[in-house]
């Protein structure tokens, strides 16, 4: 509650790992991942995994925020240092994004033609597309975005 520290997000990630472990790590899930086998999750497993997902997201965005915005804000403008390496990484990621998008469309066509729905693969590819977008946005903000820290009056005339 004092600063934008990396400690709580790190603990959140550890807690998320623990919750996922409690919820689902047994030998059966590997067999389940190999195809669309209807199998129920218990309400306890769903609850543990829902909290695990929130802690995972919280931990990740907390560490990203610490990386991109720092532990404390200081008023003023901050300009990034130009560099070639992030540009190369960006180009590679955009190529990966294009390949994944093409593969995802191919996967949908395959499912429509055969009636076979490999949900784990569909989720994996679509999820990967979204995660690549998140990394691209992170690279943009870290290496190309001009940052500004502002202060404002407590009283404002918005929204009324």
């Amino acid at each position, binding site marked *: 509650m004092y600063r934008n520290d990396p400690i*709580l997000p790190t603990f959140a990630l550890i807690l998320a790992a623990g919750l996922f472990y409690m919820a689902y790590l047994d030998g059966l899930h590997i067999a389940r991942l190999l195809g669309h086998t209807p199998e129920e999750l218990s309400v306890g497993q769903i609850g543990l995994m829902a909290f695990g997902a*929130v802690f995972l997201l919280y931990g990740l965005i907390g560490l990203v925020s610490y990386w991109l915005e720092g532990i404390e804000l200081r008023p003023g403008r901050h300009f990034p240092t130009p560099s070639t390496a992030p540009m190369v990484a960006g180009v590679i990621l955009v190529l990966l994004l294009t390949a994944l998008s093409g593969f995802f469309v191919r996967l949908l066509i395959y499912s429509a033609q055969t009636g076979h729905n490999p949900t784990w693969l569909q989720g994996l590819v679509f999820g990967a597309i979204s995660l690549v977008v998140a990394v691209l946005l992170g690279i943009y903000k870290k290496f190309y975005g001009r940052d500004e820290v502002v202060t404002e009056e407590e009283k404002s005339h918005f929204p009324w």
Partner: protein
Amino acid sequence: MYKWLDERLDLTGLYQKVLRKAFPVHHSFFLGEITLFAFIVLVLTGIFLTLNFEPSIREVRLPDGRTVPAAYASVLYIDSLPFGAVIRSLHHWSAHVMIAAAFLHMLRILLSGAYKKPRELNYLVGLALLGLAVVTAFTGYALPYDNYAVTATRIGYGIAASIPWVGSTLAQVMFGGEFPGSEKAIPRLYSLHVLWLPLLLMALIGMHMAIMMKQKHTQPRYAERVAPGRILGVPMYPQQLVMMGILFALYVGIMTLIAGAFLAHPIEAFGPPTPNTPAVKPDWYFLWIYGILQIIPSTWEFHLFGATVGPEFIGGVVIPGILGLVGLLLPFLDTRKDKMRYMELPSQHPVRTSVILALLVFFLMTTLAGYKIDFQQQGSILGNNAVLWTLVLGGPLLTYIVSYTLLRIFYGRREEEALQ
């Protein structure tokens, strides 16, 4: 183009007033954003589901010859579409994540004292949002009309109908008649789930945001040192929007991975409703209420003004109602005279922090009591009612004492040292 629009709509004014708004930076603020993004994903995936779902229990014949309710058949159809099962699973998981994130967001508000003046009203709106999210999730639970969902929803129907004097009317409004059985039940729950409750949620979310913008965020404590008396943060556009974009992409990425790998409610495994009642439990966010119902003796019943007050009403309505009332009154009991600008540290408020931890243990222990029958079948000591009562009452009390003592020992001493 921009100049043309600016001359007519004063876009520069909008930019200065709204898009330059300072957003304080602290990771705990993202819990509210995770809740919001879960809701957005719920709406987007819900739109897809409404295009293919049939809210009816009329009998239809499947290609394999089975006769099942139309709602059940339409969900099977959704699951057979390319990416359809993942979208439905994502909808299901997002509902769970929204409730879990809203709960953790509220926990942060409680631990940092952010419900105090001037944010009492917004705290109440947030509390209403959490309650409404749970009700919305509940109304969606029965829609696939499989054997499990129908049986689990029947527990909620029983609780609603058990409320003295108004129970049957409330059950009629929510379920359109007897559940299961009434043909109006699924259309009624469907209209509540896709129209009325989401509209109410959107209105309350809008109000929550507007009040937050007017009153400003609470700030991390270091801001008092860096920019005393002012709001310190990054502008909404572009910086905060980029951070929100990253979080949204992370949300969609991780939740789609989970939704694809772990189908939350595979209705083929449960089958259509049958006269045989499967052994079910309500969803995890109702499990603590279910646990209270499990340990309350059936003898707790009396008659009042012609109505029967039974254990179902006491455990399902009275006890959660008392907790809800305490939650509603909190900002008016724990007050401060000056405006609250900076987050309070939990370590500096040992009573409040210990009460919240005790409440968490109460929820955990009552959730554990929800497994009473399973414990009894295993022959575990936890199947004993006296043991469960001891855990439900003694666990929170012990947590409070231990937490308060530790906070006083470790942080009280630091305060004394600082004062010297």
